[in-house]
C-alpha cells in the first residue's frame, strides 16, 4: 500500500468526531447507529487534543463500526492522527469485505485475514506519512533519550493506537478488539454480555497496539452467528468510559440504560444528549477522552 492510498483527507478528519445518526437494514433487522466522541476533561485542562476517533458506516456486507484510542503518551505524539487513520482503514477494509455464502465463511475470514488487513493497512499509511513528513526537532525535543531510542526502533509508535471494530453481515456479527476499550452487547431482555472475554494483558495503562511489529497476532476476534434475534444493542467504547466508573457493573449498566432510553425515548433524544453525558462522565470520572459507537435495533 503506498502513500496514495492514505484514507484520510483533511475534510474527513474534521468530520470524524462530529457524530452521526442513521438507519439501515442488515443482519435481519433495521439498525440505528449513533456515535459521539468528546475531549477528556483532563485533556482540556492540559491543552491536549481529543486522541480518540469513531465512525459508523454502511459499507461492504452491511454495517461497520470502528473506534480507536490514540495512546496519547509523549512518545505517541501523532496518535490523534493514528486513531483517525485506524478508523479510516477499518472502514476501507470493511468496504472490501466480500460477499460470502455462510456464517462459517465470515468467521474464518474474520479470524484469518481481518486482523492482518487492518494492521497492514494502518502500518502502510503510517509508514507513508512518516516518509512524507519525518519527525521534526520540535516533536523529538521533549522526549527522553530512552523514548527517542524506542521511536528509532519503531517509528510507528508515534501514531500508536488501539482499534475496536464491529461488522454486521447478513448472517453474522463480527467483533474485533486490538488494545484496550470495551465491547458490550445487550439482548432483548436487557442482559449485558461481552462478546470478547477480558484480556489479561491489558493491565493498568498497558495496552496492545496497532504499532507493534506483528500486531495482528494480538487482535481478538469473535463471530456471532445470527440464528434467532440479533442483539438489541451493541456498544463500543474507548477505555475512558469504563475507567470513569467505580466498577464493571456500573459501566455495564450504562449499556442497558442506553438501550432502554433509545427504545423508550428514541434515537433523536439520546443523540442530542450523548456528548453531554460523555463530557459529564469524563469530568466526574477518568478525565480521559471518551468515545462511543452504538448500533441498536427496535424490538421486533
Amino acid at each position, binding site marked *: 500500500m503506498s502513500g496514495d492510498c492514505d484514507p484520510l483527507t483533511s475534510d474527513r478528519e474534521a468530520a470524524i468526531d462530529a457524530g452521526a445518526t442513521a438507519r439501515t437494514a442488515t443482519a435481519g433487522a433495521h439498525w440505528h447507529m449513533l456515535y459521539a466522541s468528546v475531549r477528556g476533561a483532563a485533556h482540556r485542562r492540559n491543552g491536549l487534543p481529543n486522541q480518540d476517533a469513531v465512525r459508523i458506516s454502511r459499507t461492504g456486507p452491511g454495517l461497520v463500526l470502528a473506534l480507536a484510542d490514540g495512546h496519547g503518551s509523549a512518545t505517541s505524539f501523532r496518535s490523534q492522527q493514528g486513531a483517525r487513520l485506524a478508523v479510516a482503514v477499518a472502514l476501507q477494509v470493511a468496504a472490501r469485505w466480500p460477499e460470502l455464502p455462510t456464517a462459517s465463511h465470515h468467521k474464518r475470514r474474520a479470524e484469518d485475514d481481518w486482523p492482518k488487513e487492518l494492521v*497492514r493497512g494502518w502500518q502502510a499509511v503510517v509508514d507513508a506519512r512518516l516518509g512524507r513528513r519525518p519527525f521534526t526537532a520540535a516533536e523529538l525535543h521533549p522526549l527522553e533519550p530512552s523514548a527517542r531510542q524506542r521511536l528509532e526502533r519503531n517509528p510507528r509508535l508515534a501514531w500508536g493506537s488501539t482499534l475496536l471494530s464491529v461488522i454486521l453481515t447478513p448472517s453474522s456479527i463480527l467483533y474485533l478488539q486490538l488494545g484496550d476499550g470495551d465491547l458490550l452487547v445487550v439482548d432483548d431482555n436487557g442482559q449485558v454480555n461481552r462478546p470478547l472475554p477480558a484480556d489479561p494483558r491489558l493491565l493498568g495503562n498497558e495496552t496492545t497496539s496497532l504499532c507493534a*511489529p506483528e500486531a495482528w*497476532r494480538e487482535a481478538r476476534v469473535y463471530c456471532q452467528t445470527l440464528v434467532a434475534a440479533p442483539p438489541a444493542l451493541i456498544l463500543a467504547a474507548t477505555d475512558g468510559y469504563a475507567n470513569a466508573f467505580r466498577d464493571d457493573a456500573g459501566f455495564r449498566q450504562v449499556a442497558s440504560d442506553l438501550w432502554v432510553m433509545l427504545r423508550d425515548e428514541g434515537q433523536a433524544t439520546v443523540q442530542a444528549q450523548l456528548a453531554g453525558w460523555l463530557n459529564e462522565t469524563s469530568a466526574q470520572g477518568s478525565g480521559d477522552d471518551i468515545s462511543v459507537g452504538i448500533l441498536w435495533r427496535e424490538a421486533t
Partner: protein
Amino acid sequence: MHQLLTLGSQLPTAAGPCTIERFLGGGGQGEVYQVSVASQPPSALKWYFPQQATADQRQALQTLIRKGPPGPGFLWPLELIEAPQTPGFGYLMPLREPRFHGIVDLMKRRIEPDFRALTLAGLHLSQAFLALHAKGLCYRDISFGNVFLDPDSGAIAICDNDNVTIDGSDPGGILGTPRFIAPEVVRGEARPGTQTDLFSLAVLLFYLFHIHHPLEGRQEAEIKCFDLPAMTRLYGTDPCFIFDPADDRNRPVPGLHDNAIAHWGIYPEFLREHFTRGFTSGLRDPQARIRESEWRLALARLLDGIHYCGQCGAENFHDPAAGSAGTCWSCGQPLRLPWRLRLADALGGAPSRYPVLLNHDTRLYAHHLDPDRRYDFVTPLAEVNRHPSDPNRWGLKNLGPDKWVITGADGQLRDVEPGRSAGLVSGLRIDFGPLRGVLEG
C-alpha cells in the same frame, strides 16, 4: 451470547437427563455447551443451528458414533441427542480439559511450549491422523481452529470431529479452511479426502514449527485485500513454497515474516527436506505428499536429537547431516553434544544415522528399543540417571521388565537387570533384545 439452548434446562441422554450448565462457545455450525449427566464428570454438547441440522449431518454423526474414536486425542461424538420440545439435534462428546490451548494461542504467543512439547504435539498429530486414515476416514477440515495442545506435555486434542467422513463418500459438505486446503481443492479440481488431509497436516506441522504459513512470503505481502481471487492465486493456482530451493519468487519478507526466517535454520536438514518435498512436489502431486508415518518417524528422530546448550540452556536440534555440533541458535556459542546412543538392528543391521542424544532428562520408550512396538510416551523403558554418590558419573537405568546385556571395552559381557543401570562409557554396547546400541561420547 448463546441462542439455541436455555441454561439450566435438561435434555434426555442414555444415562439420564443432562443439564445445560454453561455456554462454551459458538461457531459457524452450532453452539457448544458444558453439560452434566447425573454424577458423571461434565461433558460437552454441540447443538446445531437449524440450517445445519440436516438429515445428512444426522446420519454422518450416527456413523461416527458407531465407528468410535480412531485413537486417543479425538474429542469424538459419543451420543446423538434429540428432544421433542427442542428443534434440531446435537451430540455429546468429551469436554476439552483446561490444560489444552488452541494453536491460535501458540500463533499469538499466549502459550510458549518448549521444542520438546512442540515436537511431541506434532508426533501425536501425525499418529492421530494415521489412525483416522487407517479407519478409512478423512478429516477434511484440519486447521489450527480445531487442534488443541497441552503446552507442558505436548498432548493434543482434536475437536470438530463431526466433519469427519468416510474417504471418498462425500459429494458436498465442508471444503476446509482456506489456508489449509490442498491446492487442487482450492482450484475446484478435487474434493477433500485422505490425500488432501496430508497437505493440511503438513501445513499444520509447518505452522507448529515456524509459527507461519509455508506459502506466505513475498506474494502474500503484496496482497492488500485477501479476497477470493487473491486467496485462490496464493493457495491454489500459483502456490510457491517460501523456501523452495528452485524458486525464490516467494521468499519470506523480513519484518513481515520473521518467524519463518528465524525458525527455518534451527531444524535439521532431514526435517527441512520433508517440508521442502511436501511443499514443492507435494504441492503439485498428491501422491508425493509426506505420509503420516513419515512425519511420525521424522518427528521421533527430531525428538531424539534435542539437546541443551551448555551456555544458555536453550534446546537445540542435532543435525546428523552437519559436520559438527554447530552453534547454539539462541546464544551463538559453540555446542557440545552429550552422550549419544546409536541403535542398530540386533541381527546385524547398519547403525542408525540418527542417534538418541542422552541428556540429563532423556527417557527411552518402547519404540526406541523395539521397532515393532507402538509409539508410546507414557511408560519409559530406560532413563538417564546420575550415580548416587558420584555426580560426575552418569548411567542409563533399565526401567523395563527385561534384562539388557552390555559389552564393555574389555569384551566382558554383563547383565543389567531391571532397576539397575549401565554406566555411560564410550564404546559400551548394550543389547536391548531386538535392537542393540553403542554409546558415543
